[in-house]
């Protein structure tokens, strides 16, 4: 398996999807083992590809720009040439590791979590397709395949969020996710078409090179970059498209883990990282990314603080993290963004799977109904705690290193730096809060507490593995660790060769962030453990602020109002037009006309033989006359 053979990877889970979708019900265990084997094979096959990559890197050093391997799909000579192919470079490698490993963990975990589900086989089929499309997305060397996979990811997320389709809320949430991301997808599609029209190619690297050579007009480039970012915002749930992500919690918890850690939302980050050179060519391009990232991170940190659903809190933490990634991209440091994405994948999957464990054990997910679970579920408590602290940014855990990188990258932009610093204690606070309310203190519903138990090994093993990774992955920032793993010059050199950036440390930044995180944790500890009555008092005193946060800044209501007023009104008008003009006149009109003319014409069919014979004779005579007149 070399890098150019990477096209095999998406095909394995795609094949699993086909087999499961067609024959799932007839297979033993509904075929879950096929899905798990497929994704396991993907993970195993990723390893030689990484080895091949490090070899190439050692051989060619910084000149190594990735390996591309594509086949021609169709060609209109002189007009259009469509290729399908893979492009493997450093970003792809990071994404491959994240996607394949997290997907493997989620699928193994689902063996226990989804057991007994009515649509168990279908769940595994779709989740295989989900992984397949995400792999194709990160491997794609052209925008066509990327867009194709991009839409498939959206479709799979729709299917999986709506997995419990008998619940109205789940159906609504899946619809919301699909439509919201669609809005962004349209932007992406237009951007792709614009870029293709300007450069004549769909190849991503080709387009970037053409743009850098100045072949794309400034206005077109600006427009397409903005539209491209629109797509990324939709998929990565950035403000103002972030509303779908918290609702997406209606899906099964392992799906949330997959969506948040490895597949759906990181697609946007990946897309921006991949096309960052385009953003840098446009005045204000990176600033736009930075602003959106900051806004999202800031808003989500506030909302995370008041949410009462354990999964929703984690969902807002994801928004927070995604915001940070975009901030890093916005200041031109894809290395920091990709590092954050890499470590985030592990601890976010860990958090969701831990939350899933809790829900599986208690069938409750409101923190107000949980509490005291540490005595019943020590393993979940410890692993979830590790994840939460990593998210909060406690030193030496994965999240700490990545967050620190972003801070260092932000040093030149004082305002952004300050804003990110403010979010740090908030993040630490709500993560501590959710941990405290769920696992510590007294059980609020003794009955649920009574029945709580650890999940089966299929659920425990992924938790442990992810927890271990959360503990250690952060250390890849040290060049020595990277070298030991076979990456010449450390991981930082690897992740973005065009932006040489070894991981750096600024002592005072580190200290400040540690201090702020500690402040946040301590504050949370004080508020929810030492003085449990404090939050209620604060809530009473700051009622407007709390209402604002708990209602998610009223954005959902705003959107709903727009849908009710504008969208539905327009739709009604269009429906009227469609029914009366298109259908009744345009479609039925010719049909009625035909029917009426036929009615008139049918009377010539007398059924009497002599009439027909006369018609024949008249025809012959007429034809003969015509022939004569032509001859004459």
């Amino acid at each position: 398996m070399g890098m150019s053979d990477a096209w095999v990877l998406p095909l394995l889970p795609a094949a699993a999807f086909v087999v499961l979708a067609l024959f799932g019900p007839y297979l033993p265990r509904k075929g879950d083992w096929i899905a798990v084997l497929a994704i396991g094979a993907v993970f195993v096959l990723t390893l030689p590809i990484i080895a091949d990559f490090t070899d190439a890197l050692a051989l060619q050093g910084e000149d190594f720009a990735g390996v591309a391997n594509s086949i021609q799909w169709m060609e209109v000579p002189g007009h259009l040439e469509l290729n399908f192919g893979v492009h493997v470079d450093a970003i792809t490698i990071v994404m491959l590791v994240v996607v394949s490993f997290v997907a493997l963990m989620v699928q193994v975990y689902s063996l226990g979590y989804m057991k007994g589900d009515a649509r168990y086989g279908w769940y595994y089929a779709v989740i295989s397709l989900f992984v397949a499309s995400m792999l194709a997305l990160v491997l794609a060397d052209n925008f066509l395949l990327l867009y194709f996979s991009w839409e498939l990811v959206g479709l799979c997320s729709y299917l999986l969020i709506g997995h419990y389709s008998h619940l109205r809320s789940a159906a609504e949430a899946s619809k919301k996710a699909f439509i919201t991301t669609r809005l962004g997808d349209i932007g992406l599609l237009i951007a792709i078409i614009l870029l293709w029209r300007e450069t004549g190619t769909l190849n991503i690297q080709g387009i970037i090179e053409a743009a850098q050579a100045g072949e794309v007009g400034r206005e077109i480039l600006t427009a397409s970059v903005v539209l491209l970012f629109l797509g990324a915002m939709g998929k990565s749930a950035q403000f103002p498209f972030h509303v779908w992500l918290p609702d997406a919690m209606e899906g099964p918890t392992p799906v949330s883990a997959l969506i948040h850690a490895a597949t759906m939302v990181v697609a946007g980050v990946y897309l921006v990282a991949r096309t960052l050179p385009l953003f840098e060519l446009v005045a204000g391009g990176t600033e736009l990314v930075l602003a959106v990232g900051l806004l999202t991170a800031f808003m989500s940190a506030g909302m995370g603080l008041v949410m009462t659903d354990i999964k929703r809190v984690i969902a807002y933490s994801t928004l927070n993290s995604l915001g940070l990634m975009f901030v890093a991209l916005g200041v031109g440091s894809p290395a920091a963004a990709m590092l954050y994405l890499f470590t985030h994948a592990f601890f976010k999957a860990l958090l969701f799977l831990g939350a899933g464990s809790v829900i599986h054990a208690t069938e409750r997910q409101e923190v107000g109904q949980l509490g005291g679970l540490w005595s019943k579920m020590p393993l979940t408590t410890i692993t979830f705690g590790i994840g939460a602290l990593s998210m909060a940014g406690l030193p030496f855990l994965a999240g700490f290193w990545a967050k620190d990188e972003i801070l260092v990258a932000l040093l030149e932009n004082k305002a952004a730096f300050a804003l990110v610093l403010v979010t740090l204690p908030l993040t630490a606070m709500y993560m501590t809060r959710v941990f405290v309310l769920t696992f510590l203190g007294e059980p609020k519903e003794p009955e649920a507490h009574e029945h709580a138990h650890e999940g089966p090994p299929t659920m425990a093993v992924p938790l442990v593995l992810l927890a271990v990774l959360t503990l250690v992955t952060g250390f890849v920032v040290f060049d020595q660790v990277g070298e030991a793993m076979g990456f010449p010059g450390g991981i930082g050199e690897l992740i973005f060769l065009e932006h040489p950036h070894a991981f750096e440390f600024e002592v005072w930044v580190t200290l400040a962030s540690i201090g702020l995180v500690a402040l946040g944790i301590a504050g949370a500890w004080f508020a929810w453990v030492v003085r449990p009555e404090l939050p209620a008092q604060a809530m009473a005193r700051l009622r407007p602020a709390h209402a604002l946060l708990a209602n998610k800044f009223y954005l959902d209501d705003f959107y709903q109002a727009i849908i009710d007023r504008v969208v539905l009104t327009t739709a009604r008008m269009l429906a009227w037009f469609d029914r009366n003009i298109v259908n009744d006149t345009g479609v039925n009109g010719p049909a009625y006309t035909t029917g009426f003319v036929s009615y008139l014409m049918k009377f010539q069919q007398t059924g009497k033989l002599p009439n027909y014979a006369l018609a024949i004779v008249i025809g012959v005579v007429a034809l003969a006359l015509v022939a004569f007149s032509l001859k004459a």
Partner: protein
Amino acid sequence: MTVAQGIFYLIAALAVAGGLGVVLARNTVYAALFLILALLAVAGIYILLASEFLALVQVLIYAGAITVLLLFALMLTRVGDLEETMVGAQWPLAVVASILLVGLLITTIATSDWPGDADGMITRIPFETLGEALFRQWAVPFEIASLVLLIALVGAIVLARDEEGDVEEAE
């Protein structure tokens, strides 16, 4: 006008008269008898064309067998009297169409350039030559024609036979 020409015009007049009788006679049996006249006249034409064999066949099969068959059919399908009560409603149009047709045909004949002798030299074919040709050169079409005849007869029998249960209907 030679004798042959005189005979031709006579026979032709008989043929046309017979034909008109077939299509105009009010009595159906008269129509059938007029048909015999027309067919015999056509046999005479064949003799004028030096095809005696064909003339014999015409008399035997057409004027004999087929006409008898038609008379039988008339008898079997008779409802009331033999007068045809009504000519089809479209007869004016039919007159126009027929006159146009004959006009066109005659115009075509008159304006076309026909091969052959202008003074009407024709060749007599002896019976032997004809029989030899029919059973050697035309053996396969001959056999096929006989097969067609056989199939037609079988079909006619099948169609005309009384089936179980439709006797009542026929009454």
